[in-house]
């Protein structure tokens, strides 16, 4: 034994009876760190436990000052246990490999019968409990982060912003601290799992730029989330482009992502392989993401997977810990609910819009019905009046003509007067005739009809009026036209009415064309003039009966034409530009099974 130690032992013996020294020798082998010091705090005894804890052998410690040996740099205020003889405090000592060693020191003051003083020191290693404490604190912090993210998601209404917020939460230093994250959502309509958004740097350089910029300012998660702009289609970030490339069809069940979605559980991919070993290989994904290790977490709403959240640490290569995964799963849960909420909101909005449209349609139909009833009442009355005045008109006009023809040499005044009567009666008769025809609509007698030929016949009938107005006339028909299934007389009348209107719109001449062409299951007739056209306020009324802008019109021509086309289950459309002309278009069904025929046959 070294003299110093012998000295020390004799000093220890001063405190303890001989048998107790034997006990001390036993304690020397004890693994609990155990030290004895003298009044000057110099080490008298240093057991094996202490040697192991501090990495210092007995001979390196005995005789030296305890505080120096253990490198005590900071200590909590001492507190006393069991009267004044024992005190306990936490302190940081020097660890064998350098750095702090958290410990609890229990120090019991001793006094020998000769008055010599010293102390027994028990040291408890706190490294593990400190670590636990830190983990607990981190856990609490993480959960509060998740809560903060959840709160942000709750208050967010737009799906795009929710997706952004999830990604910010996953990657922010105030959040889950992943390097990069991508979101994919199920699109039921397109039957795809769509890569919707992504966040994170492409490489270490960009990471440095972004992270140092973010570190400059202390922002809350909410502020970070608010900072992000909506996705600009023209200027997608690299991560967003990557996200888009992840899109796969829901029916590709042999693809890794679809498998992960249906598995509805977290999947780790490590060094390019699924950690659990199951499922299709993730290699296409590894290639797109440019990273071999990542986590895929399902986004669930009401037990139904609505999407996937992928996160990696591609830049820092930091290992993804079970805690990280826990957090990501929690985030996925929150995200799923938030996404489902917007989907339901959208659905409700769509339903509301649909109902509103339906209500509007019902109201419109009611208005149409009221209008139709009103018109039919007016029409009935007009027909009665027309019928009553028809015969007197015929008599007046007839005798005026008769007088004109019977008087061989009437004087100028008489002739003129009679001619006025004849003219006016002719005008009234045409109006009365139209009113009567209008009031006596009969269902069409559908036959097989050569529309091109009918159009030419209508032109022939109007030849005189066309020449008078100086209007060029042309029928342009497809080479092979099917026969129309329509009432010849009615369609002829509709055509003549439309053509007459067109001629009247071109008092100074112009061009009038009828184009007849074959369309799917039918034919289309377009009557085009180069006339005056109509202002919108006239256009709004043209289909109303008795509405006319012409001094001699009954206001029924177009109404009748439209009614006839309607009776043929078609619609007469009118397109007019003031000063440019008017085009009237209507469609008729073709005779079923009819082959196209040459025009004029």
């Amino acid at each position, binding site marked *: 034994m070294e003299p110093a130690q012998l000295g020390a032992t004799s000093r220890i013996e001063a405190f303890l009876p001989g048998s107790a020294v034997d006990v001390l020798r036993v304690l020397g082998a004890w693994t609990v760190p155990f030290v004895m010091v003298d009044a000057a705090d110099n080490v008298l005894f240093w057991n094996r436990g202490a040697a192991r804890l501090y990495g210092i052998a007995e001979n390196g410690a005995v005789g030296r000052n305890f505080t120096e040996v253990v490198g005590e740099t900071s200590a909590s205020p001492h507190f006393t246990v069991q009267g004044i003889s024992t005190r306990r405090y936490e302190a940081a000592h020097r660890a064998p490999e350098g750095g702090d060693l958290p410990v609890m020191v229990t120090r019991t003051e001793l006094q020998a019968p000769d008055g010599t003083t010293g102390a027994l020191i028990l040291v408890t290693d706190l490294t593990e409990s400190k670590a636990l404490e830190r983990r607990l604190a981190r856990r609490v912090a993480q959960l509060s982060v998740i809560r903060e993210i959840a709160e942000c998601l709750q208050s967010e209404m737009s799906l795009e912003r929710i997706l952004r917020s999830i990604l910010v939460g996953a990657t922010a230093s105030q959040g889950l601290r992943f390097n990069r994250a991508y979101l994919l959502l199920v699109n039921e309509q397109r039957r795809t799992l769509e890569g919707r958004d992504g966040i994170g740097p492409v490489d270490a350089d960009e990471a440095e730029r972004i992270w140092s910029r973010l570190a400059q300012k202390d922002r809350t998660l909410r502020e970070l989330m608010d900072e992000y702009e909506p996705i600009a289609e023209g200027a997608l970030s690299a991560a967003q482009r990557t996200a888009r490339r992840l899109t796969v069809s829901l029916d590709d069940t042999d693809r890794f992502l679809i498998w992960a979605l249906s598995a509805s559980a977290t999947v780790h991919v490590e060094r390019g392989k699924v950690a659990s070993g199951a499922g299709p290989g993730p290699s296409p994904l590894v290639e797109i993401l440019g990273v071999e290790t990542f986590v895929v977490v399902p986004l669930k709403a009401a037990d139904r997977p609505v999407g996937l959240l992928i996160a990696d640490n591609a830049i820092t290569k930091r290992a993804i810990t079970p805690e990280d995964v826990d957090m990501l799963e929690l985030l996925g849960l929150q995200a799923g609910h938030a996404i489902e909420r917007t989907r339901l909101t959208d659905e409700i909005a769509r339903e509301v819009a649909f109902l509103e449209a339906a209500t509007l349609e019902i109201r419109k139909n009611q208005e149409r019905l009221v209008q139709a009833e009103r018109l039919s009442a007016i029409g009935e009355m007009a027909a009665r009046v027309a*019928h009553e005045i*028809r*015969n*007197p*008109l*015929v*008599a*007046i*006009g*007839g*005798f*005026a*003509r*008769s007088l004109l*023809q*019977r008087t061989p040499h009437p004087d100028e005044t008489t002739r003129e007067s009679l001619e006025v009567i*004849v003219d006016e*009666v*002719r005008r009234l*008769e045409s109006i009365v*005739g139209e009113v*009567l*025809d209008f009031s*006596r609509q*009969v269902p069409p*007698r559908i036959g097989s009809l050569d529309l091109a030929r009918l159009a030419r016949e209508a032109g022939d009938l109007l030849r005189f009026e066309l020449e008078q107005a100086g209007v060029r006339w042309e029928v342009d028909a497809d080479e092979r036209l099917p026969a129309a299934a329509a009432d010849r*007389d009615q369609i002829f009348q509709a055509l003549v009415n439309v053509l007459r209107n067109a001629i009247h719109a071109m008092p100074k001449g112009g061009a009038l064309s009828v184009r007849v062409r074959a369309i799917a299951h039918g034919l289309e007739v377009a009557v085009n003039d180069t006339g005056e056209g109509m202002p919108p306020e006239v256009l709004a009324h043209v289909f109303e009966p008795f509405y006319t802008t012409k001094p001699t019109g009954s206001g029924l021509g177009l109404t009748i034409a439209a009614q006839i086309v309607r009776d043929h289950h078609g619609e007469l459309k009118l397109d007019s530009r003031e000063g440019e002309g008017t085009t009237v278009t209507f469609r008729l069904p073709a005779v079923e099974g009819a082959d196209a025929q040459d025009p004029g046959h």
Partner: protein
Amino acid sequence: MPKILVIEDEKNLRLLYKQDLERDGYQVVTAATAPEGIAMVEAEHPDLVVMDIRLPGMDGLEAMSKVLEKHPRMPVVLNSAYSSYHENFMSWAADAYVVKSADTDELRARVRELLQSRSEA
């Protein structure tokens, strides 16, 4: 001289048709109602009948079919307020169909044509 029977309930129109047709050189007899007209066909043996489709007491078409039952070759000109009357197939039996008008040119032209083709037959 061909004889024409005009069946027309309006007194003034009867007069108009009578004058106009007489000026064209026909003998004209008139009736105001359908039964009267049917009786006159038997009594007067006209060469042609001009009749209104709407007559009081009996429909013009019905009157026409009664006339045609006994005299199937009797030319009949229907005179109507409407430009189309084809929803009743009976009107197809008429030899001519003329819209009532102050302008009697068409009526007179049809009468002339029918009588001409009759005399040629």
